[in-house]
């Protein structure tokens, strides 16, 4: 088994995959953050309107 060839192929393929993933996650993550803040703001406003709702049931 030629380990040098295996690791060379494995390394460059992984770098390429990671480069693609980085671009996708960077763009997608940005939109996810915007959506998270919207959800949290909405939840906060809801909690302020109903002070009894302390938190979801704690186990």
């Amino acid at each position, binding site marked *: *088994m030629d*380990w*040098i060839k295996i*690791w*060379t192929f*494995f*390394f460059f393929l*992984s*770098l390429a*995959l*990671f*480069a693609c*993933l*980085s671009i*996708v*996650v*960077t*763009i*997608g*993550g940005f*939109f*996810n*953050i915007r*959506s*998270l*803040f919207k*959800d*949290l*703001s909405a*939840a*906060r406003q809801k*909690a302020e309107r109903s002070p009894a709702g*302390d*938190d*979801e049931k*704690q*186990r």
Partner: protein
Amino acid sequence: MDIDFTSLGFGTNFSILDWCIVIGYLIAIVSIGVYIRKYIASATDFMVAGRGLKTFLAIATMIGTELGLVTVMYSSQKGFTGGFAAFHIAFAAAIVTLFVGITGFIVVPLRRLKVMTIPEFYEVRFGRDIRILGGIILALSGILNMGMFLKAGSLFVTGVTGMTSEFHLKIVMTVLLCMVLLYTTLGGMVSVAILDYIQFVVLSFSLLFASVMSIRHLGWGNIVDTVTREMGQSGFNPFDEAGFGWSYVLWMFFMGLVSCAVWQTAVIRACSAKSTGIVRRIYMLSSVGFLIRFLIPYFFGICALVFIANNPTLKGIFLSADGKANSDLSLTAMPFYLSQILPAGFIGIISAGMLAAFMSTHDSYLLCWSSVLTQDVVAPWFKKDLSSNARLLLTRIFIVAIGIFILVWGLWYPLEQDLWDYMAISGAIYSIGGFALLAFGLYWKRASRAGAYLALIAGFLALLGLSKVQQLCSPLLDPIKKRFEIEGDIPSAIIGLTVLALAIVLMIVGSLLLPDKKQIMNSLETQE
């Protein structure tokens, strides 16, 4: 380890510009973390971001946490000492994470149960006392596991900046820890998720760029030739017993599973995800991240070896006459190498990314272990439920207490083995028992409390994998070493695998001999 590389003609490329980049970056991310505080309304927001993380942000935060500076440090050390053969660890991590993503093994049922921590599952499945014992073991193992984080991080700082004074090292460690404590105690999981995202972006692109720079600087052919010359076949073949060997490869597959499906800091991401479908997607896509978080640092370690081995002065310092790496110096080889080949300006960006990674890992781990102590060790003792505010306060107190502990431990504990092996074994104290409880608890109806107790306690034997503990237990271990003709320490992989097998056997035997009177599995299925 006070070696003045500047006087040897190896001054760092780290300049005033780089200091400005690092300081500006760190101030910016801490400010963001503090600003995000206004979005925290409850303990659930604080601990699992209101379970509102969507796919890409969850992937970024998962990789952001796992691709920490400590990971980069211990992985580069493995690359430096093990050569290309160390790539098998990255391969194992990717394959196992992909397997978990495809099958949903452990993480999907956990997300369905809506638990925040793994010991919370222990209570649902095995009872409250198992939750408390499991919580104590998990927190103990986790805190011990992160005990060397500060030391590794500070070695990076000194290596890359060319600082040689121990005093400077301690100051840097303390300042960094204070910054982490500040924004972790204020922002919780929301700030962790956002900062992990920023760190993911900075670090992933700078690591890719540094990899390309390394190949251009050293040449791929030269890298392969030097590893062949210095290590021979064991530098490439992971099964070669002169290097890693079969047992180590097997142990790494188990550690890969633990890292993504049993280790609380990764599982908390699954618990934070919006749905079980997202959990699967996170794991499938994160398999590339789990691969790369090891692979690129291994490559940097290999490049450091090539850089050092081709320079007689440096070779004399870092490598002994038989070509073996000095364990203390091998940790600093990678930052030293980066300080030599990266240009001013870029080295500041990558250092800022690494330090952000250092802080990101710390915040996630601090949050994780403090949550476990609050939710699983303290809260179950109260008959009446603790209020959300009391839990938040307790979590913050634990964060500060753990921070102080790791500062003291990092300065005091003498690391006498590869950092990765220390991490694997300290983590195994929990993860071996934890794996048995999760796998059997979720998928085997007859798993009982007695089996769970035995498996959790068996995990403690993994401590024998630490060099220091082996030295303390030498009267007990020497006959075993003699019997199996082992010179030096018993390999941590052998100990880990043996303890794992023992925990599984005890779980099965304990469950069969002492079954639970009440069938808890039915109530668990009802909750799902």
